[in-house]
């Protein structure tokens, strides 16, 4: 059982790291701010989610696990806030006026 959990942890964390790697490559290679933003939030949402999921069997339940999940939810909230703000800034900067509501 422990072996299975450990394998699960390794697989999930490695998969999460792949998303982070892809997100970083996208951040460096994509042509404009909006696509780069997409790459970054994808890494944060899915990559961090998979890392947290993988670490869940390794921490004390319930408080350790709940803290990890809260961490992921906070990162989601931050990403969901920064995305629209940056998008709004890009739109305004490119066109010189406010976007429609």
């Amino acid at each position, binding site marked *: 059982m422990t072996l299975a959990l450990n394998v699960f942890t390794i697989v999930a964390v490695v998969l999460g790291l792949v998303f982070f790697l892809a997100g970083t490559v996208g951040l460096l290679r994509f042509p404009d701010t909006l696509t780069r933003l997409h790459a970054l939030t994808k890494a944060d949402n899915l990559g961090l989610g998979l890392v947290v999921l993988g670490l869940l069997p390794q921490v004390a339940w319930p408080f350790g696990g709940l803290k990890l999940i809260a961490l992921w939810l*906070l990162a989601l*909230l*931050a990403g*969901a*806030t920064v*995305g*629209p*703000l940056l998008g*709004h800034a890009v739109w305004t900067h490119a066109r010189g006026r*406010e976007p429609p509501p």
Partner: protein
Amino acid sequence: MSLALAADAGLALLILGLAVWTTIARTAFGAVIGFMAYGFLVALVWVRLAAVDVALTEAALGSGLTGVLLLGAAARLPRDAAAARPGWGLRLAAGVVSAAVAAGLAAVVLLLPVPGPTLAPVATATLPTLGLGNPVTGVLIAYRAIDTLLESVVLVLALIGLWSLARDEDWGGRPDALRAANPGAALVLLAQVLPPLGLLVGVHLFWTGAIAPGGAFQGGTVLAAMWVLTLVAGLTRPPRVGGRGVRLLLVAGPALFLAIGVAGFWLGGAFLAYPAADAKPLILAIEAALTLSIAVALGLLLAGPPGARE
């Protein structure tokens, strides 16, 4: 080379790279972004140096609140006001001087005495009688309480200095510079969802500071950050700087600290001495009042001097 050392070397290289970027970036805005990232990585270094209390302070205050302050300043700089950079001669001389200072410090680091001197046994000797489990809180509130008392006064003095920079016609008004002109739905939602959670984290940091990393400064900083978030989103307005309530809140922490310190002459036999029987409740009362005053002071420091919006 062990794995931990390799990871630490990578961390140190990242920090140095970000510091170089902060120093030579083309725009002030870019430099500030570099500095914020630098601060968060330095917080990781504090964890590696077994100083978790410092790491919390660095992440919340040294990087977070300072970053907000510097970003605001960078956004308001005049665009075409870049002054001429100094000539090659001065830059070379500055480089030589800086390298010499750095080399001297590096030599000091390499020649530090082994084993390193320590005050840990002395500083922690009284912890059990105080009912504290976190040695850093013990130093802040008991062993070197006078430093902490003066520091809480420094925040009030800094605020007086900041307010005195207001123009005469603005005096007594609200420091409104933080409010975003057009916060947008996402920011307003964040300012509605996050503060209850942040409030919980801030109070938890203050409460757990007695036995685990945390304390008045870390908790107060998180509370201040939540307040500032609602200020930026325009959900709350900063108080008038002339108001009596805000001034009472500002001095409550230092005043209670000072009062209990003076009472120590009768109760414990010396200034800032705690009576053995009631040490824990007294310390908690001081920490609670300090947390509140620090949160208000930090928030008002970020809000800037009273005056019309720029």
